[in-house]
């Protein structure tokens, strides 16, 4: 009995010592030369989507708050709010509001190779969720078929960082654990996993792999690989992801290429985008499971083509057409709209330093 009483005290003492250690690390200035200021950034978007003849208009805003403390701490939070107006059979529009918190995390830069993250964060699995998902960044507004295969958000802790392995190789890594959360807006799975990436700066090529183990329900695991390449001689980006889940969610891949017409003066602000993707539903699914899984229960092929025009570096007009092939339900996917990325300091910026 006594042993059980002592344990929480020991853990509490260890946690207190750990905090003191981290605090003392934070006290020592990193000296970047510039004092960081709090920033409000994010994006707004307005898109009209026509999916299999169903019209939807969706204004959305995704604010991101960045609060730096000292030279090593950063609190960052991203919210999302959108109102989707859908046209019903009578031709009337009905609005559906959706909102949530994409991430809300505290980052501590422990040293040049390691950053600790705590809170709700985007699961570090492959590259789409963390890097490409914001609507002002993504080349095509339709979400890839790989995204629902793994859980997008986690609640817990993460260790991540990057270091130059040699002059021509950067290594990046992320390891995390997440607890189960059943809140309807902040739901996460109890899981653990990580990602490792190898970036060759000379070739501008990144290759990497990810792993995720869910520690609840039927405990499926997922693995994935990704690549991103920007050849030095052409304004081209080629990206790809593959993910495979051991559970009921199947496997999928996508490959996307983005070509900026920077060599033609009058079209230098225009980007051409193409993407092909396939989703393979898990085999041996019962009829009930297929019904429960919805889109994840059937094999799907999809091809998309899009145009992005940068009116300014922060204002972009986009249009895309996609064709989705699903057994018994092929569909056209049209998207037209605009995004605006905003950024503003929350305190007077003061001098340069």
């Amino acid at each position, binding site marked *: 009995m006594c042993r059980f009483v002592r344990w929480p005290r020991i853990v509490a003492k260890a946690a207190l010592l750990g905090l003191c250690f981290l605090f003392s690390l934070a006290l020592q200035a990193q000296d970047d030369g510039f004092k960081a*200021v709090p920033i409000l950034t994010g994006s707004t978007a307005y898109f009209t989507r026509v999916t299999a003849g169903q019209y939807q208009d969706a204004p959305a805003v995704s604010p991101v708050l*960045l609060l730096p403390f000292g030279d090593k701490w950063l609190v*960052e939070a991203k919210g999302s709010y959108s109102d989707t107006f859908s046209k019903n059979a009578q031709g009337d529009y009905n609005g559906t509001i959706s909102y949530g918190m994409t991430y809300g995390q505290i980052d501590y830069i422990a040293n040049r190779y390691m950053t600790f993250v705590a809170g709700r964060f985007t699961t570090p699995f492959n590259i789409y969720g963390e890097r490409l998902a914001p609507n002002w960044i993504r080349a095509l507004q339709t979400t890839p078929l790989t995204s629902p295969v793994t859980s997008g958000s986690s609640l817990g802790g993460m260790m991540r960082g990057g270091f130059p392995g040699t002059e021509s190789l950067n290594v990046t890594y992320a390891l995390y654990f997440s607890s189960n959360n059943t809140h309807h807006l902040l739901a996460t799975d109890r899981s653990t996993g990580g990602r490792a990436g190898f970036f060759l700066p000379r070739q501008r090529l990144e290759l990497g792999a990810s792993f995720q183990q869910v520690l609840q329900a039927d405990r499926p695991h997922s693995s994935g690989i990704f690549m991103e390449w920007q050849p030095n001689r052409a304004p081209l980006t080629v990206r790809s992801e593959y993910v495979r889940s051991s559970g009921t969610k199947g496997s999928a891949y996508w490959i996307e290429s983005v070509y900026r017409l920077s060599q033609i003066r009058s079209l230098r602000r225009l980007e051409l985008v193409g993407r092909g993707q396939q989703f393979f539903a898990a085999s041996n699914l019962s009829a009930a499971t297929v019904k429960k899984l919805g889109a994840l229960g059937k094999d799907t092929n999809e091809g998309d083509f899009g145009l992005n025009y940068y009116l300014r570096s922060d204002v972009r007009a986009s249009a895309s057409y996609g064709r989705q092939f699903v057994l018994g339900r092929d569909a056209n996917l049209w998207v037209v709209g605009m995004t605006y990325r905003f950024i503003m300091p929350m305190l007077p910026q003061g001098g340069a330093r």
Partner: protein
Amino acid sequence: MKMKFVLASFLVAGAMSLGLMANASSGGKDVAKDATKDSSAVPVSAEQAAQNENMHFEGEKRFRSNCARCHAAPPKFSPRMMATIVRHMRVRATITDQDMRLILRYMTE
């Protein structure tokens, strides 16, 4: 009771000094770090000018290979805003410390 208090104080002080020492030792030589310091007040020699040009070239290269991989080049913001943005991107895109410093220098020139 008094002994426990002394022991706890000693442990806390020890942890703090260990943290400070660890950080001091990790903040050693870093070319890019020195590069962020203002050198405008000092007369610039030819060697220094060449070094600055090299740092600018390296910064642009790191910017193109890290930032432009995902998004269009943003306009240059004030140095204090850039310090926050670069810290955010360091975490989000796992940019190495060296690349971060070179990018910060390039974006605040």
